[in-house]
């Protein structure tokens, strides 16, 4: 196989690499914000939805934000290196190095900061745009969809947006579903449930002890002549 092709296969996918390298709770928060936004436009007019889509078209995604950030720092480093001290060239070197890492892995030091502040990937912005376009009726053959159908469609979209977080349910997951599980386990009845679940085990030990002390009686020889066990 072509070594470049091999390297590309090993690296995360282009459109999901930033999400893959972001903490789950940050992705969940962004997803929740998208859901809220879509829900807000469930009853909005076509004009309002169109205005929102235009806003989304102008929204800066993570790549554009990083490009501006890196270009500003690298340019500043280069100018300072040329005019003040050559050592400022290190700023440009470090910044472009991290930009290279971001191109490969979808992570560089400013990414967590931007993601925490809600800067989305192009894919995440497009998800909201697609949902809004469906709400606007872009994909409908007729424009007179009933209100009930419109609500049901909106609900489907919200569920679609929420689907990826469903898989992240565990006792130690820092997600809404994970917290739900923790609340379900450590509720007010935790002690009673633990006692109920573990109750058979002390009885097993008692039964084992009874077997131990009852064994000599159980194995008391019968009246008939004992047989000698012979070993091969």
């Amino acid at each position, binding site marked *: 196989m072509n070594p470049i092709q091999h390297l590309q296969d090993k690296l995360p996918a282009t459109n999901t690499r930033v999400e893959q390298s972001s903490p789950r709770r940050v992705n969940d928060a962004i997803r929740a914000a998208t859901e809220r936004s879509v829900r807000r436009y469930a009853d909005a007019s076509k004009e309002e939805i169109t205005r929102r889509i235009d806003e989304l078209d102008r929204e800066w995604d993570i790549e554009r934000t990083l490009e501006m950030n890196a270009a500003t720092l690298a340019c500043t480093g280069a100018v300072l290196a040329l005019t003040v001290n050559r050592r400022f060239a290190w700023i440009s070197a470090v910044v472009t190095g991290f930009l290279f890492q971001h191109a490969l892995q979808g992570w560089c030091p400013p990414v967590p900061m931007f993601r925490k502040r809600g800067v989305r990937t192009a894919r995440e912005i497009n998800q909201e745009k697609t949902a809004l376009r469906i709400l606007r009726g872009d994909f409908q053959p007729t424009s007179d969809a009933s209100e009930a159908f419109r609500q049901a469609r909106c609900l489907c979209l919200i569920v679609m947006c929420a689907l990826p977080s*469903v898989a992240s*349910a*565990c*006792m130690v997951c820092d997600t809404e*579903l994970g917290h*739900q*599980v923790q609340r*379900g*386990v450590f509720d007010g009845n935790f002690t009673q*449930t*633990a006692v*109920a*679940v*573990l*109750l*058979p*085990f002390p*009885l*097993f*030990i008692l*039964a*084992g002890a009874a*077997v*131990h*002390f009852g*064994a*000599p009686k*159980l*194995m*008391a*020889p*019968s009246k*008939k*002549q*004992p*047989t*000698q*066990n012979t*070993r091969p």
Partner: protein
Amino acid sequence: MEQNTMTHAPLITAGTFLGIGMGGFVDGILFHQILQLHNMLSAKVPKTTIANIEINMFWDGMFHALTWVMTAIGIALLWKAARRVDVPWLGKVFVGALFLGWGLFNLIEGIIDHQLLNLHHVYEAQGQSKFDYLFLLSGVVFIVGGLMAIRSQRDVTVSVADRR
């Protein structure tokens, strides 16, 4: 006579604890995980949402942890029994004790969890059903079968010299 000082109790006790542990794992692995007929709290927390399935999974884990402890006790007792020359090493007694332990598990767990506390039932889709009684019956059958297997060896003697 050396053979009069022989004792079966350590082997039977070790086998019983191992039987309890292995019986617990049969329940946990076969019914909870492979067939997914029930989970620890499936009668109280129905498996209708992912959160509820995870809650059941947590309590399944607690159950498995204690089952593991029973098995560990059994292994420790078996290890001690193996080092004693006055314990006859009889396969039929050991297998009988394993069944005795398995039967005790089914009987005690069935009475407490299925009948008294209603934490779960063998076939949860049917709630309290004939399968709960079959589970109890299997416990009684294993206990009786295990005791019979053990008692069938009571006249078999092994001298200390043989054990060495």
